[in-house]
């Protein structure tokens, strides 16, 4: 009997129930989409922050001072220590290899060009490296996204070079020209514009720089661009002083310090540290944006809850005569309340599931449109969202149901609303 009542209610009053179902669906969709955005925005913004370039740098452990002013490097190649180029692919073997977006080696060497000493920097542009079975590309093109080339990027194994914008205009060079330094002639494949020191330098493939310096397989610095978790007090602690459980937790969190620690493990005789200008500030920006989205999500959830409960209350209020009739026919308060509660729970379930699917789609589309990659909503959230939807619909209709059930059936039957 009970089941039939509920079923008939849905069958006969389908249109009226539709408005309420739409309200529940929309409310749940918005709530799901906002939760998806709030949880996913941290990762998306972290990735976008990589446009600031490398946030970690690896240098030789025993190194003499850098002597550079602006674009001129005055440190002789013979002084200081070097890192081994062969160790570079091992960077993809660290625990946090999936967080390493890109890395680029650097080897500066001074060359004689038209009577002046110019710094030539050897690097990878977009070199293919292999680690175990993994093949990947890494280099300046991905580590420093603001580098622009007018012309073509040189191939990593060629003798072509890039000439910085200001140097190029001083020497009247353009893409395709020939440049002679240290007695050798090379082709300028493009003019490089970075807005930094490189505009006055020559940027060449690493192999060429190593040959010029007479140091095969040597690298002075490695710049690493990694997705990190903003540092907190725990991150700054010395891992060797932590208990084994704490040390595991430190190691398994992508703090800049723990990634630097892991880089030092795979590159022999190295010292890795965060580049504070990038690392400190991206942590700050990230926490601001995440905080903002969290607060806005809470506002969205509250608004959705209010929308759904007001729709439910309104729908419930309309059915007072129906309630009066059932009461006059002898229905008890409890069974009457149960019918409406079950109805609203069913409504919440249907609307909740459809809303969840809609919200997931919405978050996916939004992620694609703004960040170029989809924002995923964890399916684990479905029971949570469903529970909230049921709670809200129940809460919204509870007061109305209580009032309706207490209503004098005579008044209802007479038509006095």
């Amino acid at each position, binding site marked *: 009997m009970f089941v039939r009542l509920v079923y008939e209610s849905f069958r006969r009053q389908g249109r009226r129930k539709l408005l309420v179902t739409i309200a529940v669906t929309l409310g749940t969709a*918005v709530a799901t989409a906002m939760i998806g955005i709030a949880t996913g925005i941290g990762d998306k913004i972290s990735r976008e922050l990589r446009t600031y370039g490398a946030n970690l740098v690896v240098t030789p452990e025993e190194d003499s001072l850098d002597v550079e002013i602006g674009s001129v490097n005055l440190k002789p190649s013979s002084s200081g220590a070097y890192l081994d180029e062969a160790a570079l692919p091992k960077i993809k073997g660290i625990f946090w290899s999936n967080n390493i977006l890109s890395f680029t080696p650097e080897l500066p060497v001074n060359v004689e060009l038209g009577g002046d000493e110019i710094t030539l920097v050897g690097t990878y542009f977009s070199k293919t490296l292999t680690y175990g079975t993994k093949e990947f590309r890494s280099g300046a093109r991905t580590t420093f996204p603001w580098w622009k080339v007018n012309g073509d990027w040189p191939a990593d194994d060629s003798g072509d070079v890039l000439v910085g914008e200001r140097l190029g205009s001083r020497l009247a060079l353009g893409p395709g020209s020939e440049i002679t330094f240290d007695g050798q002639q090379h082709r300028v494949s493009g003019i490089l514009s970075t807005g930094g020191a490189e505009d006055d330098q020559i940027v060449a493939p690493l192999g060429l720089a190593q040959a010029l310096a007479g140091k095969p397989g040597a690298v002075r610095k490695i710049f690493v661009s990694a997705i990190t978790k903003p540092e907190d007090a725990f991150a700054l602690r010395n891992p060797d002083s932590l208990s084994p459980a704490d040390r595991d937790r430190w190691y398994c969190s992508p703090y800049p310090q723990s990634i630097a620690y892991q880089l030092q493990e795979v590159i022999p005789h190295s010292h890795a540290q965060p*580049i504070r*200008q990038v690392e400190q500030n991206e942590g700050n920006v990230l926490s601001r944006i995440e*905080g903002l989205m969290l607060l*806005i999500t809470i*506002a*969205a959830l509250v608004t959705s809850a209010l929308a759904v409960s*007001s*729709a439910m209350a309104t729908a419930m209020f309309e059915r007072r005569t129906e309630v009066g009739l059932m009461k006059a026919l002898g229905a008890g308060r409890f069974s009457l309340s149960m019918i409406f509660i079950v109805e609203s729970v069913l409504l919440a379930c249907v609307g909740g599931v459809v809303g969840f699917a809609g919200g997931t789609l919405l978050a996916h589309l939004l992620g694609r449109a*703004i960040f170029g990659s989809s924002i995923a909503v964890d399916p684990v959230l479905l029971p949570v969202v469903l529970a909230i939807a049921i709670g809200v619909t129940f809460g919204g209709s509870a007061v109305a149901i209580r009032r309706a059930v207490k209503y004098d059936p005579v008044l209802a039957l007479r038509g006095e609303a």
Partner: protein
Amino acid sequence: MYLRMLLRAARLRKMQAASALTGVMVAAAAATAMLNIYVDVETKLRKEFRNFGANVVVEAAEGKSFSPETMASIRSTVGARGLAVPFAYTVARTDKDQPIVVAGTDLELAKKLNPWWSVSAWPNASGQALVGVRAAATLDNQSAFRVAHDGHLLHLRSAGTLRTGAGEDSRVYISLEDFRSWTGLDPSVVEIAASGSREEINTLLHQLHETVPAAVVRPVRQVTEGEANIVGKTRSTLLSSAAFIVLTAALCVLATLMGWVFDRRRDFAIMKALGASDLLIALFVSGEAALVAMVGAGMGFVLGIGIAAWIGRVNFHAPVVPRLSLLAPVLGGAVGITLISSLLPLRLLRRIQPAMILRGE
């Protein structure tokens, strides 16, 4: 008469009127807060991005430097828009005849420009130096060391160490006065952290180029491009979120008000039976809706400004500027939605005969 009917209707159906008003208020508050934040978030984020340091650099021509008068004119061009910090560099030699870069700068301003510099203690007197960690490791005695430039010796005492993870770690920083009296050189680089949108920064670049035509004025693309990217994407996300919230709030108002009008169909049936025309009933209902909208939106606006200010204080530690210009669109939107949600059920009711409603069908 009209006014009396309106007020009567509200008084008799206190519960319904109150819930309709609350609905509009919540919707208006949500919309106001979201729009306020959206308009202000760009300024807030740009302020955070100034912590990245200089976004504009002015370099003197090859071999030249900036005289104190030129420095003053650069500083006045930048004005209140940002910080202009001079840097002078030279290569000196330590006692062990090692080359080392010594930089002279306004240490107070450098501290403000580069908040990420991890400094153990800043120099506060002449003869004191800020030594980069790598440079410090090569010095035998940090408390008293000498650097030589062009035969002139400078005796320095290390006040503290500096760590940045970049080139600064290998340098020694002293005050501009000490640098000048030691080498006779003026600063050759001015790093500027300027606030403002892309257009404002471009204007600054033009003005600086006019002030010092011989120098190279360029934006630090690493910083400006990164900033433009993040600010743009955050604003888009915020706009979409605002759209979702406003939509949901509008739905809330729609549901509540439609229910209210529908509920009173007997009253409208009586009015019709007494001779009121459809137009009169429509005017009556719209009047009610507009009143609810204006009162609700007004209260909601104030509440929304408060919420936005709270969010600004909690998240950005700076108040969100209340934009009174938002009142008009919020009010307009509220009136629009309430009118639609009131008049729509009326259209449905119009087709029904009053007699049927009065009979209770």
